[in-house]
């Protein structure tokens, strides 16, 4: 099964992804729009071989002002809108009959406002875009420092909570690729970008996780909380068994621990109480369905819970890759 998945990813990387990038980026650039490619295909170029970085979509970022015009151009290029942007969304999702397994997400934001815990500004990121050859198509991408910060914030955002190792692998590949090119990562620039976006903790946590896969970022640049609730939660995040215990830590605890801005932490708490998630979480904890970070269960439940989680994902037919 593993071989089949690996072969399928390789075929997709060699045949479908270049076609999907060309189909989405070329019409836009020909119309004078400059899309910024980020996440999936932009990160995959840092991997040592094609097919090692699975993905289910292509992410393009444009300023809000260009969004409607870009949609018109893409419609003319036979892309079909399957989910419009608007309330609760920060992108428009499109599909193309020539690349049915890959969707296109045309972003004007990075996360819904309800999940906003950093000050990352998509307009500023787009302003700082750099030319990029993405799967054989000329486009624009993020600078290495911005790429590290955006990927770390994406991995640690409330909806994700560092639950996939592929995002940690992404950081290892980017940093390793920079070193292999003879231009090591500029950690001062990474720190400056993280400070500007008020996401120093989430970037620090991502780089500490990446330390396990060979990234040697200076810890003193990205200090992490060590005491109290935030410290305890981060110790669980950074434990060696995180890959098999990730789903046991309630996402709210992690969001609270990873949020830099104290006012934002209070807002998150109020939102949680407002939605009664606190009571639900406590009921689940009492019922043994969750592990509270303070009331940690032994590792014995880990195996069955990972398998149960995977099977439930398969039942829901959710895409495994993003």
């Amino acid at each position, binding site marked *: *099964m*593993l*071989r089949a*998945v*690996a072969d399928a*990813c*390789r075929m997709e990387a060699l045949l479908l992804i270049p076609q999907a990038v060309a189909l989405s980026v070329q019409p836009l650039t020909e119309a004078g729009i400059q899309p910024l490619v980020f996440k999936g295909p932009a990160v995959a170029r840092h991997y*040592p*071989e094609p*097919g*090692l*970085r*699975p993905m289910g979509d292509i992410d393009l970022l444009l300023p809000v002002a260009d969004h409607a015009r870009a949609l018109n151009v893409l419609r003319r290029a036979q892309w079909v809108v399957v989910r419009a942007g608007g309330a609760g969304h920060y992108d428009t999702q499109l599909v193309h009959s020539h690349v049915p397994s890959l969707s296109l997400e045309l972003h004007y934001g990075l996360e819904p406002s309800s999940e906003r815990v950093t000050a990352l500004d998509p307009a500023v990121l787009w302003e700082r875009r750099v030319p990029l050859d993405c799967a054989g198509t000329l486009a624009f991408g993020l600078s290495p420092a911005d790429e590290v910060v955006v990927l770390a914030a994406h991995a640690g955002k409330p909806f994700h909570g560092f*639950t*996939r*190792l*592929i995002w*940690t*692998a992404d950081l*290892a*590949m980017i940093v*390793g*690729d920079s070193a292999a090119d003879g231009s090591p990562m500029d950690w001062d620039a990474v720190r400056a970008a993280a400070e500007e976006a008020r996401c120093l903790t989430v970037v620090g946590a991502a780089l500490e996780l990446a330390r*396990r*896969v*060979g990234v040697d970022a200076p810890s003193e640049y990205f200090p992490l909380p060590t005491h109290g609730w935030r410290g305890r939660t981060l110790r669980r995040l950074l434990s*060696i*068994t*995180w*890959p*098999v*215990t990730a789903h046991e830590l309630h996402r709210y605890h992690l969001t609270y621990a990873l949020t830099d801005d104290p006012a934002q932490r209070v807002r998150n708490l109020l939102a949680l109480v407002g939605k*009664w998630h606190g*009571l*639900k979480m406590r*009921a*689940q904890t*009492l*019922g*043994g369905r969750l592990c509270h970070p303070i009331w940690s*269960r*032994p*590792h*014995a*439940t*880990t*195996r*069955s819970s*990972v*398998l149960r*989680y*995977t099977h439930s*994902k398969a039942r829901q037919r959710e895409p*495994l*890759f*993003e």
Partner: protein
Amino acid sequence: MRPFAQLSELSLELDPPETLVTVPTTLLLPLERRDITAHSVVGILSAVIFFGRLEFGAARRNRAASQPGMMNAVPYDAHVASEQTSMLLWECCRRDPNLSAVRRALTNGADTELALAAAAMHGIEPLLWRALGRGA
């Protein structure tokens, strides 16, 4: 005379489809008999039974996880397996995985079934396949 309280008054609905917590033994007593001592004793006993069952359940699950199962010929050490499986998964995500570290994790008790399930969950199946020497 109102011998029993309405059940609807006694249940605390936390999340309708999933959780309905009721405290029947304590509060189903006649409301007229407001014998605080009796209520307290029954309440405490209910709490002891409730939390006791939770804890015994957890202990039983822990014991079961460390017993040899249908798939395991040797006793399954959950903690060692979790740690070694995690080390295998971390190793996969390196730019250049160390194959001897991968072999060491497998020799030291990494759970391959768990590794496969976790790799699917983490989106690193191709990386795991590469680290395992592509079946070599």
